[in-house]
């Protein structure tokens, strides 16, 4: 994992000091809330319904055990004992007092962390595949490039007052777990005909009020030109992106209104016009330096199979199910990638207690080379666990309430904070998620249904990614009453698509029975148990499922 050198450390320390000064000016009344707003928003501090919320960056979702322990400490000392994983692989604390935030930033700086650019109209935390560096599917580890992008975009003098926020995601695997096609810029690492590594550049994806799937504007940009090419995209967006209407200010609107081909031409022209003096010097030695931090850990040479693992599965059926559902193949023989579900039945999706953070840190230290990942689907990952150790890991997780066997199943729901916490929300979302989890609580039934991604947003800003849920749920307010619009067929993987609205909205209490009917229809019509809901939807069209959804009327 990346470690700060004196340059990185100085920037983060100076940021903490700068923000301390800004908070002092606010607390002394030297600046008004209106004047303070842009300053705090540059630093991940939002004013929510009940309190200030602090959002801390977890660059590309990669975390060390000591950093997780610092989160646990912050949760205990400054919050109510909880933290919340976000869909940008970050963490939010919902109850931190403004006067304490400078101290929190100092504590974070002590473990090489910060809240820089977790809000505001700037380049946000770059996200990536949570299995990066562990999966055999990728052509390279995307994280060195995420780190390079993090450094390049931090306090960028030209791109800190963009028309709107800006999100970049990078993957190097064919199966896209990073949702790169619904990002402002998605980068897919590719090899060209000469065998060199570079990036396919996808621009203009996004969710919110007007969802779009991104379009490829360049099949291949070499590593040495990536930052210059990104600068060209950013400059075109900064100069020509709409600023007259906040809801039309994302790059997806510019790409759509300009036309993808024309937009690509503007970027190419800007890229071509760059003079040598404008180019970013990124020496190969620097790429190598950063890449070295992401070298594979010291794996043991192990056989493909583990007899300890096989024996444990044979005697403990619950463990066998958890292992089947929550672990994925590792590139190294004898190892496994473990997803720790933060979606226990009936609890807010993505919430973890300080105790659970400590347990996860312990496990990472003991069994996963100190590494933890946070996923955009609001779970945690231990990326490098020996098959031999899986049973002990499972038992420890089980005791901490972290062994829910539902990764990618119907109760593994992405959900925004909704009306319970958020200023923008029109409707509650967490209670809807909880009701659905209760409805489908039976883990065997979930297992039988198979992969099914439900995503819930409490307003059209779509923080809960409902547009790309296999089943999406959007809360809307109609004359003071909450209604929920259902969409089918969204997905955020390599076949990214925006879900289509099924019909009229449902009352909150009608959502679980309606979805039960949809699921029963799916089980009835699937060609075989391995045909996923999303595949059945593609094969049969939406009509049979729409009929089932409204069959009660």
């Amino acid at each position, binding site marked *: 994992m990346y470690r700060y050198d004196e*340059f990185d450390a100085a920037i983060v320390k100076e940021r903490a000091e700068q923000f301390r000064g800004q908070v002092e000016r606010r607390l002394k009344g030297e600046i008004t809330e209106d004047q303070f707003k*842009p300053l705090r928003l540059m630093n991940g501090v939002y004013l929510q319904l009940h309190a200030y919320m602090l959002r801390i960056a977890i660059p590309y979702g990669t975390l060390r055990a000591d950093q997780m322990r610092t989160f646990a400490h912050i949760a205990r000392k400054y919050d109510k004992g909880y933290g919340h994983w976000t869909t940008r692989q970050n963490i939010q604390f919902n109850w931190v007092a403004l006067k304490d935030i400078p101290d929190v930033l100092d504590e974070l700086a002590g473990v090489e962390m910060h809240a820089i650019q977790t809000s505001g109209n700037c380049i946000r935390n770059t996200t990536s595949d949570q299995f990066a560096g562990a999966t055999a599917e990728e052509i390279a580890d995307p994280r060195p490039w995420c780190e390079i992008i993090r450094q390049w975009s931090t*306090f960028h003098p*030209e791109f800190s*007052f963009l028309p709107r926020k800006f999100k970049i995601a990078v993957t190097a695997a064919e199966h896209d777990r990073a949702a790169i096609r619904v990002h402002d810029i998605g980068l897919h690492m590719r090899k060209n005909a000469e065998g060199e590594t570079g990036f396919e550049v996808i621009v203009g994806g996004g969710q919110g009020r007007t969802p779009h799937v991104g379009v490829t504007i360049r099949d291949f940009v070499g590593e040495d030109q990536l930052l210059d090419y990104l600068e060209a995209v950013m*400059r075109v967006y900064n100069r020509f992106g709409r600023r007259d209407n906040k809801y039309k200010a994302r790059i997806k609107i510019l790409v759509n209104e300009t036309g993808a081909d024309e937009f690509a031409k503007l970027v190419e022209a800007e890229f071509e016009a760059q003079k040598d003096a404008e180019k970013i010097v990124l020496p190969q030695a620097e790429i190598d330096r950063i890449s070295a931090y992401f070298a594979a850990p010291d794996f043991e040479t192990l056989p493909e199979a583990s007899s300890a693992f096989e024996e444990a599965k044979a005697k403990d059926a619950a463990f066998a199910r958890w292992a089947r559902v929550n672990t994925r193949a590792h590139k190294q023989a004898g190892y496994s990638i473990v997803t720790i579900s933060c979606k226990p039945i009936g609890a807010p999706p993505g919430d973890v207690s300080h105790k659970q953070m400590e347990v996860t840190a312990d496990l990472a230290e003991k069994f996963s080379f100190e590494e933890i990942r946070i996923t955009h689907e609001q779970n945690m990952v231990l990326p490098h666990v020996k098959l031999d150790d899986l049973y002990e890991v499972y038992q420890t997780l089980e005791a901490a309430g972290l062994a829910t066997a539902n990764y990618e199943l119907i109760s593994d729901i992405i959900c925004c904070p909704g009306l319970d916490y958020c200023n923008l929300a029109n409707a509650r979302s967490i209670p809807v998620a909880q009701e659905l989890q209760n409805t489908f609580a039976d883990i065997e039934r979930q297992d039988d249904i198979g992969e099914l991604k439900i995503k819930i947003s409490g307003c059209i800003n779509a923080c809960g990614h409902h547009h790309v849920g296999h089943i999406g749920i959007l809360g809307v307010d109609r004359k003071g009453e909450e209604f929920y619009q259902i969409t089918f067929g969204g997905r955020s993987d390599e076949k990214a698509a925006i879900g289509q609205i099924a019909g009229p909205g449902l009352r909150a209490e009608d959502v679980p029975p309606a979805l039960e009917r949809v699921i029963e229809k799916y089980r009835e019509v699937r060609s075989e148990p391995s045909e996923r809901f999303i595949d059945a939807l593609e094969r049969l069209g939406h009509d049979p499922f729409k009929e089932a959804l409204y069959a009660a009327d």
Partner: protein
Amino acid sequence: MPLIKKGEIVAAPQGEVNTLDSFLEIAAADPKDAIMVRLMPDDDPLKLEPYLDQLEVVEISFPRYADGRGYSQAQLLRRRLGFKGEIRAVGDVLRDQLLFMLRSGFDAFEIEKSDAAEAFAAASQEYSQFYQPAADGEVGVFARRHS
């Protein structure tokens, strides 16, 4: 309005500041008179290329601090066109934007109150390291690590 240059309050600017359109007309008639221009956020700074030698001041207007187009205009003037004259930020110019402006090539700042000079000077010192190369001549940390 007071003007800050190199950390000090200097005399208010003299002379007429033209919009880009009228500047281009004046310059076409007699280039000697083409010495000051004010760019609005949607103006194209590349149109100034033929007149850079006699241009003394380019004012870049920030109607709202959140409108960041002026940063691109300044970067284009300094780095693409090599403009050596003054680039002055006018409008909604706040202390907390100062460092971004300095790095993008601005070297003069019109501010509301003269007592803000000290705060502006402090703001320019808040960081010692920068990742990106920029119009202020900074080579950036990527290169600095290997120099």
